[in-house]
């Protein structure tokens, strides 16, 4: 596997999708390995002993864990095309800040939409929309975050787009009605082959979420 790239992943994971997009942007050939998260493989446990989670990027037999670390690694190693992080240190810091914001806020508030009901769910929806509005503010009138072309923050955030339909169904609300600019940005990203090929089908994600809810014992 000298020089080989392997991605241990799960089809519905928005974190895995980030890495798929980065690999596609750089036109890197790799082996995609779908993981069964209820029955974790020896390889996964060996490559990510600390968290035992996907995605895991394996390059030349060595594992890299954490999706944003993987995206940065890909950007540094395959630096001949499609730069994801800007060259200027201040712009890089801004990009890292917003990707960190997505990590800290989006998954958590999104998950609470489908895990809760009643008042708790209303609070989760409110927080989720507030977070998206902050992101809309940062996007401003740019086509992509950072104003320099498709990049790091876009990669960090756009996978959540294929989960929006599931959140909307669970929470009975419309994200587009609240954040039209952000949806326009997401649709723009979906025009890119790297994004369209990497994101899961929203209907399939919703079906999967319904199964998850059953497994968690949530109505």
């Amino acid at each position, binding site marked *: 596997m000298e020089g080989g790239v392997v991605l241990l992943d799960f089809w519905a994971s928005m974190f895995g999708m980030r890495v798929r997009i980065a690999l596609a942007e750089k036109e890197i050939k790799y082996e995609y390995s779908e993981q069964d998260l209820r029955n974790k493989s020896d390889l996964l446990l060996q490559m990510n002993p600390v968290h035992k989670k996907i995605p895991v990027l394996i390059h030349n037999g060595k594992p890299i864990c954490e999706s944003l670390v993987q995206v940065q*690694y890909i950007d540094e190693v395959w630096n001949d095309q499609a730069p994801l992080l800007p060259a200027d240190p201040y712009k890089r810091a801004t990009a890292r800040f917003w990707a960190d914001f997505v990590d800290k806020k989006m998954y958590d508030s999104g998950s609470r939409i489908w895990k809760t009901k009643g008042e708790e769910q209303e609070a989760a929806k409110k927080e989720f929309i507030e977070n998206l509005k902050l992101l809309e503010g940062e996007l401003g009138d740019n086509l992509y975050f950072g104003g320099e072309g498709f990049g790091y923050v876009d990669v960090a955030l756009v996978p959540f787009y294929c989960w929006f339909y599931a959140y909307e169904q669970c929470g009975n609300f419309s994200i587009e009605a609240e954040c039209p600019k952000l949806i326009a940005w997401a649709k723009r990203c979906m025009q890119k082959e790297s994004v369209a090929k990497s994101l899961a089908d929203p209907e399939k994600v919703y079906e999967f979420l319904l199964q998850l809810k059953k497994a968690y014992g949530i109505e």
Partner: protein
Amino acid sequence: MAAVKLLGVWVSPYNCRVICALKLKGIAYEYIEEDLLNKSPLLLQYNPVHKKIPVLVHDGRPICESAVILRYVDETWPQNPLSPTDPYERAVALFWIKFADDTTSSIAMIYLTTGEEQEKAAKECLEMLETIEEHGLIEGKKFFGGDEINMVDIAFCSVAHWLGVIEEVTGLKPFEPHKLPKLKSWILNFKSVPVIKESLPDIETMLAFFKGRREMVLASKSS
């Protein structure tokens, strides 16, 4: 007007990370102590999203989130590099910095909780320390990256300096040095670096602060 300003709170390990980095690189800066119960207009202006410290301000432009600040400082001032040059080693370092964020939160939970919640927090903290011992530290290496201190060591300042204080204040001791020898050595090595010694807040002052905080937590839980 100082080109570099740091808005911080003396007792915060996140703030300490930035001070360590600035001092290791010999960067002059103006320090502004913030009152988190009465946040300054400057803080709210510079960090409108999270309203938290630390915030580094360089030539009037703010950078927020301590891990982001560490990388910005390292990229902007190349002397005394704080991260590996090899991309794979750097990816490993970034993984552990994220883990250090989680560990720092878990240490805080020990003094912020009581009863069963506190027991759970102590257990989680111990598991993280065991993980660091088993997977993060390498036998024979002084620091996380080798013989030289780097941003991973800095990121774990909470383990080196805050954990002991929290243990003394709460009476819970998740860390047993004889069981985690590599971690014990690392703490000694880290605290022996002269710049680090200068950057860490005074222990007695910290003890007084956390004792007071702990009393407040206990008072609020018993009411």
